[in-house]
């Protein structure tokens, strides 16, 4: 691993950090996502390293900590994707179990928050609350949980619970799951400065989805409650986030990139402002202040020494993200027909999609096939694009492209305009995908006074400026 010095290494550390910058603007929050098991991660680049070796996780986490990021974010996988009964083989696949990796990363980082994506459908509250509280203890208060739910019986084939929960049941189970975890975390009073903590009070939860009782075995952890993140921005998701989450991770769906979905990038500032205002407005209903929920869209960044060079690099990355085989597969998924033998450099299929073909398993679908096909064809005609080029154009998503200065300005603008409280960076390369951002953009954000120059506290809650959770009961 190359050791580099960013200007902040030499920056004075005498002033007191504050939640707002000297110029009165908001300070932004930054998180890093480990490059995922989907086609946004470029694996054909000579610099692409292992997706599974601990050294890759360590490299990215240390880079994020060098850049004073709030947290490092790991996704989860519960079933390998399949297409037509065969395991999907075109994208990065295979990953470790997130909480275990984060516990190990706690040994090689000091301040960085450690966020695990863990499904609330195929887990049980007692076990997961215990694992998250353990991570919080072992990391000195840096644990976070990104709550997701799984809907399909396909994934259920790997689990005791098996089966299937419909959308409504999934949401109520997830809400009850989080509430139950909080009840468990609240059973221990915080340890006093002297002496051991008192015994926990027993808990008893009798709800629609969980009927459990006993004593929680883990003392109150440094953060009281690990930080709760909610991913996605459906109306139900927004409401759930407003009611109970600390962070909402918007605008990014790892594994699925429906055409037409807005992403955070130049030109969608207004859409993001509307989303931001909507989510923040829901907080009052739950007696919460706007600052108690941070909105952090997932974004990608491509840098260049000039704007033109950045655009060239961005185009090259898009080309690598969507291989000709991936482009054919995307079209197969929309059209619902076998296109093996079809030329990816030729036009889109002349026939209409089969609206009754099932979606690919283990992956978000593309929506109404006829509408998507019409949209893709229109684009192809208007710009004279081949099948491959059309898929690149419609599915690859890049948010901030430009010189370091332009990207810093763009990020700052989003936060200043109340379109975001910060960003989750999704690099396209393992493990070096964050290096350049940390070396070139973070110092500029600091110069602008919109990003911290040191960690003020030791816990993830302190980085995010979140209040101590009130102990209930």
């Amino acid at each position: 691993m190359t050791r580099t010095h960013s200007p902040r290494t030499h920056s004075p550390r005498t002033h007191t950090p504050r939640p707002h910058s000297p110029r009165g603007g908001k300070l932004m929050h930054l998180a890093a996502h480990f490059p995922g098991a989907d086609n946004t991660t470029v694996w054909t680049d000579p610099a692409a390293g292992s997706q599974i070796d601990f050294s890759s996780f360590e490299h990215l986490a240390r880079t994020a900590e060098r850049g004073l990021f709030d947290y490092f974010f790991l996704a989860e996988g519960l079933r390998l994707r399949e297409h037509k009964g065969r395991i999907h083989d075109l994208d990065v696949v295979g990953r470790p179990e997130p909480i275990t990796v984060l516990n190990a990363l706690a040994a090689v980082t000091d301040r960085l928050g450690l966020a695990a994506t863990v499904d609330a459908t195929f887990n049980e509250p007692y076990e997961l609350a215990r694992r998250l509280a353990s991570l919080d203890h072992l990391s000195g208060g840096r644990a976070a949980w990104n709550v997701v739910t799984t809907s399909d019986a396909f994934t259920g084939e790997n689990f005791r619970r098996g089966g299937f929960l419909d959308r409504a049941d999934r949401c109520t189970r997830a809400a009850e799951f989080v509430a139950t975890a909080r009840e468990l975390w609240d059973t221990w009073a915080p340890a006093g400065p002297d002496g051991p903590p008192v015994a926990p009070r027993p808990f008893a939860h009798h709800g629609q989805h969980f009927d459990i009782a006993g004593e929680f075995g883990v003392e109150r952890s440094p953060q009281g409650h690990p930080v709760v993140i909610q991913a996605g921005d459906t109306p139900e998701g927004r409401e759930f986030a407003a009611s109970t989450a600390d962070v909402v991770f918007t605008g990014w769906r790892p594994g699925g990139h429906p055409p037409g979905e807005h992403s955070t990038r130049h030109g969608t500032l207004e859409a993001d402002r509307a989303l931001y205002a909507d989510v923040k407005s829901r907080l009052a209903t739950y007696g919460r202040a706007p600052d108690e929920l941070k909105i952090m869209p997932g974004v990608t960044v491509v840098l260049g020494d000039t704007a033109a060079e950045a655009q060239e690099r961005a185009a090259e990355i898009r080309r690598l993200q969507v291989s000709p085989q991936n482009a054919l597969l995307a079209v197969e998924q929309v059209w619902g027909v076998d296109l093996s033998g079809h030329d990816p450099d030729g036009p889109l299929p002349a026939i209409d999609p089969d609206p009754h073909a099932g979606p690919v398993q283990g992956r978000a679908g593309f929506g109404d096939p006829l509408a998507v096909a019409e949209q893709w064809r229109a684009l192809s005609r208007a710009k004279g694009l081949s099948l491959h080029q059309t898929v690149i154009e419609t599915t690859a998503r890049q948010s901030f492209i430009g010189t370091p200065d332009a990207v810093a300005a763009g990020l700052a603008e989003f936060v200043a305009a109340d379109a975001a409280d910060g960003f989750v960076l999704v690099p396209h390369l393992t493990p070096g995908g964050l290096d350049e951002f940390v070396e070139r953009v973070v110092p500029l954000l600091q110069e602008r006074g919109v990003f911290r120059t040191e960690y003020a506290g030791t816990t993830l809650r302190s980085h995010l400026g979140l209040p101590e959770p009130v102990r209930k009961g």
Partner: protein
Amino acid sequence: MTPPAPGHGPLHLAAAVDLPGAFDAAPYTELARLAESGALDFVTLGDSFARHGPDALAVLARVAPDTGRVGLVPTVTTTHTEPFHVQAAVATLDWVSHGRAGWAVDVSATEADARLFGRRRVASREALWREAGEVADVARRLWDSWEDGAEIRDAATGRFVDRDKLHHVDFAGNTFSVRGPSLVPRPPQGHPVVVVDATDGHTRETAARHADVALVRAASPARADSVRAELHRRATELGRNRGKLRVFAALLVDLGGGEHAAQPGHGGGPLPTADGPLYRGGPVDLAELIATWHGAGAVDGFHLTPVEPRRDLERLVNGTVALLQHRGLFRTFYPGTTLRDHLGLARPANRYAALAGGPS
């Protein structure tokens, strides 16, 4: 290859690093490093859902980057957990420790445990251990569900993996089924080391089938030897090479009693207690006991649980282990890097690769 004759293999040593009520990483790291300074095969950390303490696998994952060679063996229970999650966590511990993971299999047999989950009634220990055997079985299948070399990164065809080297396991147990494959590529050791306490009769079938290391809480070498003989017999019946099953005597040790002062009245041997056989005496006499039992061919090694963790592990490593090393009875450094290396156990062949007749 013929298995080594009982008692003539190298001596193996393991120690428990349980610390009641400790939630910070530092004291666990300190104990694991101490064990590593004595070149012990592995450390264990016990666990149950009702216990007061952090998740054991989490603790040892936190310890992994701060240690370099010692094996890391947390208890992970199989009764209220998801087999698919359990195998993924153990495989991941193997990845983050570069091949030093083990898994001490246990069940949750109490009403208190069952109420924490509210999902299943309490079953008999026999039934729970049958299920534990199935969980160990499916875990090994899932660890094999990615063949070595499944990741091909073939830019010409756009394929990241060779799907012919990824396998559904289609396991149907009595209480669960798993389709597979795992999400975690095959761990560095192929199979992390499976440890089973085989003291109780109903655990023995699972130990004979699935354990790489079986622990026997025995107050005498004769007792340990008889359980080992039974395990070897059953393993052989099941088609296993008995040379691939290590049997350790498991003792509590209280080394607070001075250099030589063995507990009066039991001649330096362990005393049966409610928690298992307890050796109370000095580090020198413990070295003598270990040398005697191992030399007589009763066991392949010892798993020692300090009564006073910091004091007793320090005395064990700097007294007992140092003496055994001085006598040439125990390694002074780690010749290998993985826990399987320490135990003299080969990386297992992949069952699916063998079926396909393809390269491993």
